[in-house]
């Protein structure tokens, strides 16, 4: 297989030795089928053992290896070096997040937000397991299925300028996951989730730049989720004005 050499300009940040990130360049010989992650692994294994980044499944489903590749948020296991060659590739930590080290970002805030949208089935009344599954038609499944494809890779947050300006914004992935449960025919938790989704740090922060949906590697379309929650919330608000006695 043909081997060529490509330059990777990788952001380094080692909190014990530098106050601001720097860039380190590596020349990497690569076969045609290498992705950016392969190049990083090559650096780690053969050149510089101190480079830190997260990765695991190398097949685009665990969501660990999100990075900025030439300024775009990407799963580094899913972008090929050959598509950038012969130009150098800039590899940076995901935008809009605090950086722990090198390419490793702090995503603990997301885990708090995820919990806040109550991403679990909320029932008025549980059915005993002995009575079997809740029936759900393929059409009912279809209503929420693509919002359930989120791998929590954080690319959408890296693409969202609103989150960049206000880190308190609940953000695309968490709202989409909350909405996924609202849409699930087995769930009765929409009203409970409204407290967080309809909060000023929730849907109304979103100005609909739309980039979250563009960069999403799983086509979850969080932008659509957020706008639809806006419509639903507004509809319910109007209904509550018109019919204050109506309980929802």
């Amino acid at each position, binding site marked *: 297989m043909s081997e060529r050499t490509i330059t990777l300009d990788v952001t380094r940040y080692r909190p014990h030795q530098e106050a601001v990130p720097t860039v380190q360049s590596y020349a990497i010989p690569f076969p045609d089928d290498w992705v950016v992650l392969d190049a990083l692994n090559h650096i780690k294994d053969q050149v510089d053992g101190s480079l830190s980044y997260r990765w695991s499944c190398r097949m685009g489903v665990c969501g660990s290896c999100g990075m900025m590749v030439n300024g775009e948020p990407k799963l580094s296991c899913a972008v090929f070096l050959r598509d950038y060659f012969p130009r150098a590739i800039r590899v940076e930590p995901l935008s809009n997040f605090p950086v722990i080290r090198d390419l490793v970002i702090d995503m603990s805030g997301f885990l708090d937000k995820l919990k806040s949208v109550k991403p679990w089935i909320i029932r008025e009344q549980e059915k005993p397991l002995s009575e079997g599954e809740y029936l759900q038609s393929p059409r009912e499944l279809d209503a929420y299925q693509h919002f359930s494809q989120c791998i929590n890779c954080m690319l959408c947050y890296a693409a969202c300028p609103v989150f960049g300006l206000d880190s308190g914004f609940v953000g695309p992935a968490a709202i989409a996951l909350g909405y996924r449960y609202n849409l699930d025919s087995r769930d009765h938790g929409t009203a409970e989730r409204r407290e967080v989704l309809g909060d000023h740090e929730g849907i109304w922060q979103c100005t*609909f730049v739309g980039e979250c949906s563009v960069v999403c590697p799983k086509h979850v379309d969080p932008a659509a989720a957020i706008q639809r929650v806006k419509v639903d919330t507004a509809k319910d608000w109007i209904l509550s004005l018109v019919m204050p006695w109506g309980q929802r």
Partner: protein
Amino acid sequence: MMATRPDPAGLYHPAMPATWWLRKRSYFLFMLRELSSVFIAGFLVVLLLQIAQISSGEDARAAFSAMLRSPGWILFHGVALAFAVYHSVTWFYTTSIVMPLRVRGRELPRWLFTALNIGAWAGVSLVILILYLALPASA
């Protein structure tokens, strides 16, 4: 509950530069859409003033109309129209995302829904234009 979190003291917080919206075409187009509101608001202010002039007599109205014929104001209205069209088109596209249309259980492609919206919009505009032209000028 999370028991472990990064040490906040060691974190590097990248700052978002004021020019962030120049970095990407999509961000720039987004800012244009936001900016369109300024021109649309400007157009509406002019419209309100025009209506106010009507009650101030024929002379005032004619003078105001004459002023609007100046190249500057024509340029302003041209730009405002462009922004209004841009805003409307993106709005219709947004509608296709926010309220997807389902035909036989499948979501209508967004471009098609958008095109239908724009078609309907153009149709309504045409009807208004025809009505306007058909109305006797003296009315």
